[in-house]
């Protein structure tokens, strides 16, 4: 169940924000789905995904797609600002640990572009791991 482990959430920062409200709604939706189950396929898409890949996709589209693109191919609408361009994540051969590190600490921390910001103040630990799970699922083998 997607949000069963509250102790996995090691969110940094004390801000009360739209992001926090968004996460609360996701937890509520997930709990409702778990109790009632989906009546139709449309219900599934309308509620919180129960798997890390699905949740990670949502986080990716909300925060990452602006640079990395909705298809994670590095062609987001902001990509034109950057040289080097944002990474094509479908072609990434990096390990999950590396991906988690660069997401949390940013590009400079791993010797890459400083335009990749550090997300650890904005994304919870669970959200970061979900994004990594999503990125693993989209790699073109």
């Amino acid at each position: 169940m997607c949000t069963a482990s509250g102790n996995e959430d090691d969110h940094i920062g004390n801000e009360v924000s739209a992001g926090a409200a968004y996460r609360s709604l996701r937890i509520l939706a997930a709990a409702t789905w778990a109790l009632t189950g989906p009546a139709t396929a449309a219900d599934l898409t309308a509620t919180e995904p129960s798997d890390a890949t699905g949740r990670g996709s949502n986080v990716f589209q909300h925060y990452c797609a602006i640079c990395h693109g909705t298809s994670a191919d590095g062609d987001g609408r902001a990509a034109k600002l950057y040289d080097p361009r944002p990474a094509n994540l479908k072609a990434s051969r990096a390990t999950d640990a590396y991906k988690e590190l660069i997401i949390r600490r940013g590009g400079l921390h791993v010797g890459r572009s400083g335009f990749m910001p550090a997300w650890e103040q904005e994304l919870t630990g669970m959200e970061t791991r979900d994004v990594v799970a999503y990125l693993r699922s989209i790699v073109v083998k």
Partner: protein
Amino acid sequence: MIKHLAVVLAIACSGIAECAEFEVGQVNKEFTVTELKVKVGDTVSFKNNDPFAHNIFSLSDAKSFDLGAYQFGQMRKVVFDNAGTVEVECALHPGMKMTISVTK
């Protein structure tokens, strides 16, 4: 919430015309002003007043920029050197948006 007013500081530019400088804060994942009108040559200072980083950028034709991520208390300045409408966003907080109208 009482919005902070943009602070206008009139300074003398190196040219003949006088240029102004405006300050726009980032507070609670929002810009302290959502619409700002400036003249060509004016400067806008983006100051982070939140306890976490912001990454302000724009993709607008009139002025595109990326200020990079910066922390509480830090400020980044942008000179608006072309007329037009500039849509300003934050890469870390997709809901943060403001518009700067630049006129001659």
